[in-house]
């Protein structure tokens, strides 16, 4: 007997429609999470390029490349989720723009183009220099690298002062354009959920903005976290005895960036609380069951994990005097967990109650995969996806060094 997609990991309680299952599971939680990290990391790097916060230079470099690694990884949750992954590209050939998903596909592609272009301008000099350096170098690895750099230079070999200044202006322009496009991108992700009138939890006009804010929060937090981890590892791994120790992560960079993080966190929390208060006050037909989901069944997920550990605690950790790198690291990990829980509580939470408004569904995440489906939409599929950006970052780092040795 063929398994019904969704029935394998759905537990139904009381009265639900026969065809109702948790169709959008872990991969759909991860997809807005990943694209949010892309947008957030990019906005952070743009803060340096557009608003010229010089202290953010190293962070900006890292977050720009990382946002590209995330961009490459971001379609993976979709490919895992689609029941017909090879047909996924139909969205580029016959887009139905009344669907937020179709529009999202086009915006995502445009955004990828902007990020890739910006990385090109930032690194063009590097590509050309490396291409020239590796021109006659022996060995297959070097020859491959040489070809890669040559292709990536797109034939633009001019390294004069004028050309480099043009590069800088292009970077600034792209970074500036990229900010509204990043908001557009995540606004659309929020619109995908917020416009589904059939789902009592999802439907709210606030969803696009809540998604944008928490996306920026997650991107900034991930960039800061990666910055600390990479720079501290570098510091601890002494290259040559007697040589000066490499600079570790700088606390004042973290302090400065954390102010932006706090700003967006507070905004996101305010909007979410506003939504909750409005729902309770207006108490429409679906409020009875929604209340039991939010305040009883999912209480721990929402108030303890997301709002408590994921928002309030990191806020306190950052605001209390005497911030250390270690405290920042813990706070950042908690923030990322909080943003993940927000996506979880929206996607899974929205499917925790039945369309009948008289029944419940529970997503029992497959822990040990028994077949391809339970791998893709289970714990191990999720872990694969979460590891992938780091893998891509490692590959990218080989050709576009994340850390520039001064």
């Amino acid at each position, binding site marked *: 007997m*063929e*398994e*019904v*997609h*969704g*029935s394998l990991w759905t537990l139904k309680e*009381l*009265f*639900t*429609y*026969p*065809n*109702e299952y948790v*169709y*959008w599971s872990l991969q759909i939680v991860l997809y807005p999470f990943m694209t949010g990290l892309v947008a957030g990391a990019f906005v952070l790097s743009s803060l340096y390029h*557009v*608003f010229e916060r010089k202290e953010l230079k190293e962070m900006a470099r890292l977050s720009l490349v990382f946002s590209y690694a995330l961009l490459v990884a971001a379609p993976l949750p*979709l490919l895992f*989720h*689609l*029941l*017909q*992954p090879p*047909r996924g590209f*139909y*969205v580029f*050939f*016959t*887009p*139905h*723009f*009344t*669907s*937020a*998903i*179709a*529009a999202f*596909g086009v915006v995502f592609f445009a955004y990828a183009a902007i990020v890739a272009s910006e990385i090109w301008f930032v690194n063009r000099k590097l590509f050309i220099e490396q291409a020239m350096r590796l021109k006659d170098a022996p060995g297959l690895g070097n020859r491959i690298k040489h070809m890669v750099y040559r292709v990536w230079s797109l034939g633009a070999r001019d390294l004069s002062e004028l050309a480099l200044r043009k590069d800088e202006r292009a970077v600034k322009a792209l970074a*500036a354009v990229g*900010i*509204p496009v*990043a*908001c*557009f991108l995540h*606004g659309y992700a929020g619109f*995908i959920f917020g*416009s*589904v*009138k*059939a*789902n009592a939890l999802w439907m709210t006009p606030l969803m*696009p*903005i809540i998604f*944008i804010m928490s996306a920026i929060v997650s991107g900034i937090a991930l960039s800061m976290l990666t910055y600390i981890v990479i720079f501290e590892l570098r510091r601890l791994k002494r290259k040559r005895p007697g040589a000066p120790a490499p600079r570790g992560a700088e606390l004042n960079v973290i302090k400065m960036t954390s102010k*932006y993080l706090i700003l967006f966190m507070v905004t996101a929390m305010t909007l979410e609380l506003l939504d909750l208060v409005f729902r309770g006050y207006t108490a429409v037909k679906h409020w009875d069951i929604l209340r039991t989901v939010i305040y009883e069944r999912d209480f721990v997920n929402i108030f303890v994990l997301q709002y408590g550990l994921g928002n309030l605690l990191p806020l306190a950790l950052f605001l209390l005097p005497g911030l250390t790198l270690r405290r920042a690291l813990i706070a950042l990990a908690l923030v990322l967990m909080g943003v993940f829980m927000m996506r979880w509580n929206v996607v899974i939470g929205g499917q925790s109650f*039945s*369309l*009948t*408004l*008289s029944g419940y569904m529970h997503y029992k995440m497959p822990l040990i995969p028994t077949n391809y489906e339970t791998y893709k939409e289970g714990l191990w599929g999720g872990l694969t996806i979460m590891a992938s950006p780091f893998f891509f970052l490692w590959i990218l780092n080989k050709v576009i060094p994340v850390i520039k040795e001064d």
Partner: protein
Amino acid sequence: MISRRDFLKFSLLAGTGIGLSGLTGKLIWAGGTASREGLRAPTISTASKKWVFLVDTYKCVGCGLCVRACKLENETPYDAPVTRTWVERYVVKKDGSVVADSPMGGRDGYLKNDPQGIIVPPDEIAKAFFVPKLCNQCTNPPCVQVCPVGATYRSPDGVVLVDRKWCIGCGYCIMACPYGVRFFHPVYKVAEKCNFCYHRIWNGMRPACVDACPFGARLIGDINDPSDPVANVIRTERVAVLKEEFGTKPNVYYLNFDSVVR
């Protein structure tokens, strides 16, 4: 801390992004809705058929033969816990509480007085009845609106169909349907739902569930045909539709409806 100038710069950029999305959205949607037949009020025209369905919940006895016939006719795997049409049972107790269920969609009928597996003493029952459900073939189908690739659509005669060769299996249509009629086909791995047995109705036959029902609880008709008895009932008698508040304009009408029906 961020200067006022920079904050304003940022807000302007972010606002442009949000504003742009709103503007393009409006342009695209407005362009799409202008030609949408659904906006216009239905006009009686003999040139085109428009299918409507009528369910009489008094006549339904919960035998489940419709579900069985549908599964066999439309090749939905018989033992899979999904079905294009189903029958729900509602038992309203004297204390006002409602116990409802639909085991396997009512495929095997209702053999015991045990909604949700709990026997209800007959003297506690105020009223109880069965409600057959199927795709409402909405005039404004939200499932069609959200399909990203155009794999589902509304045919000229008002039936919402799924193109099995084009569906990418994203599931957005399933999430968008307020009635829960859509599901993933276990074999074809694409979206699936009742289509009024389109292969039967286009050549004068009736949907399998309509034929199978021994009690005439299910009927299909053409609202544009002035001589159609089903259309006549819908026009002249007290009928209800499901979840009208969603604005979907469903085309399945119910006689002997009740407010406890979900």
